């Protein structure tokens, strides 16, 4: 039961993008088409789930017993960078069109704050192993949800007449604000 709560909390109530502002770069960059938003979401979710597991293991089996917490950030970011490299090679082998459509944003998952943020939050909250995994999956689902919603709205926006200074980034921020506002409706659904 608690695992489900962690999942829902990460996915909806404390959505990573809309209430923690993690992963804004791909959120703004890849949310133009629904297709690429979905595949980006999948890739990020995948990396998140693995990162959650691996960083948990590193933190509890290596860094804490050997008193190496100073190296925490360096260790985490290296793990994430290699994982992303792995995913990139995997995607290129399996689906070339997908690889092309994600383009530069695939390697950029490394610098997606959502991934490192996930690892840090999981440790800050002292989640157990199972909870960490559920947290990772939930955060990935929440990220995908926000990305797809945004892409859907932006596809419509293409046809709308937007005041000149707001074109592009400006209107995207405003729309994201509206989305965040509506997600705040979920606040209080789960405490903590």
């Amino acid at each position, binding site marked *: 039961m608690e695992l489900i709560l962690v999942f829902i909390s990460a996915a909806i109530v404390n959505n990573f993008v*809309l*209430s*923690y*502002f*993690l*992963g*804004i*770069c791909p959120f*703004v960059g890849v949310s133009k088409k629904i297709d690429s938003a979905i595949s980006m979401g999948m890739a990020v979710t995948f990396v998140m789930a693995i990162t959650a597991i691996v960083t948990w293991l590193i933190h509890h089996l290596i860094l804490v017993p050997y008193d190496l917490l*100073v*190296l*925490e*950030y*360096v260790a985490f*970011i*290296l793990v994430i*960078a290699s994982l992303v490299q792995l995913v990139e090679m995997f995607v290129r082998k399996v689906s070339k069109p997908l690889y092309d459509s994600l383009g530069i944003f695939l*390697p*950029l998952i*490394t*610098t*997606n*704050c959502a*991934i*490192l*943020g996930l690892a*840090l*939050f999981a440790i*800050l909250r002292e989640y157990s192993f199972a909870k960490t995994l559920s947290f990772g999956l939930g955060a990935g689902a929440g990220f995908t949800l926000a990305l797809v919603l945004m892409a859907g709205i932006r596809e419509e926006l293409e046809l709308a007449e937007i*005041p*000149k*200074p*707001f*074109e592009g*980034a*400006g*209107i*995207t*921020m*405003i729309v*994201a*604000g*509206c989305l*965040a*506002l509506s997600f*705040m409706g979920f606040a209080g659904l789960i405490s903590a």
Partner: protein
Amino acid sequence: MAKKANPIGYEFNKGVWGENPVLAALLGLCPVLAVTNTAENGLAMGLATSFVLISSSFMVSILRKVIPKQVRIAGYIVIIATFVTMADRFLAAYFFEISKSLGPYIPLIVVNCLILGRQEAFASKNSIFRSLVDAIGMAVGFTWVLVILGGIREIFGSGSLFNIALFGDWFEPWMVMILPPGAFFTLGLMIAAYKLTNMKGA
């Protein structure tokens, strides 16, 4: 990039205004939006990021001929992570309150695309002096946006600026401004204002 080296003043100014990392390039938005609920937090975040950006630009520029091309990104990230750890420890030791209110967003400077972007695009190709000027320009550009954004949100959201109350009792704070949606709205308006100014100048 032009063949002839740009004058040094240009490298500085482009970070502050022309190619402002936040308003024009939309880099490093996560900390921009997350910690700017007060001007003070914005300033602290801006300074911490500036420290990391300037030191890593310096370091990368020194090592630019030593780091092999294939592993350069990993190399940059390790350099950046080292400086972030330093900044994190420093804040926790001397400014505990600020360190607590910024929380995990300090370690998240590691993945600030602005910093990695400058290493890849500039520090790895230019001399130490030019990289430093570029980094300082970008740092100033980043910090002023954070402080203004934090200031606007603090004035409307809490009725104060740098923790000094501005209005009397009659002021009803706009809660939404210090909550996540306020960050998006304010930044959206700032980007629009920035574009409008540039359009008028053109």
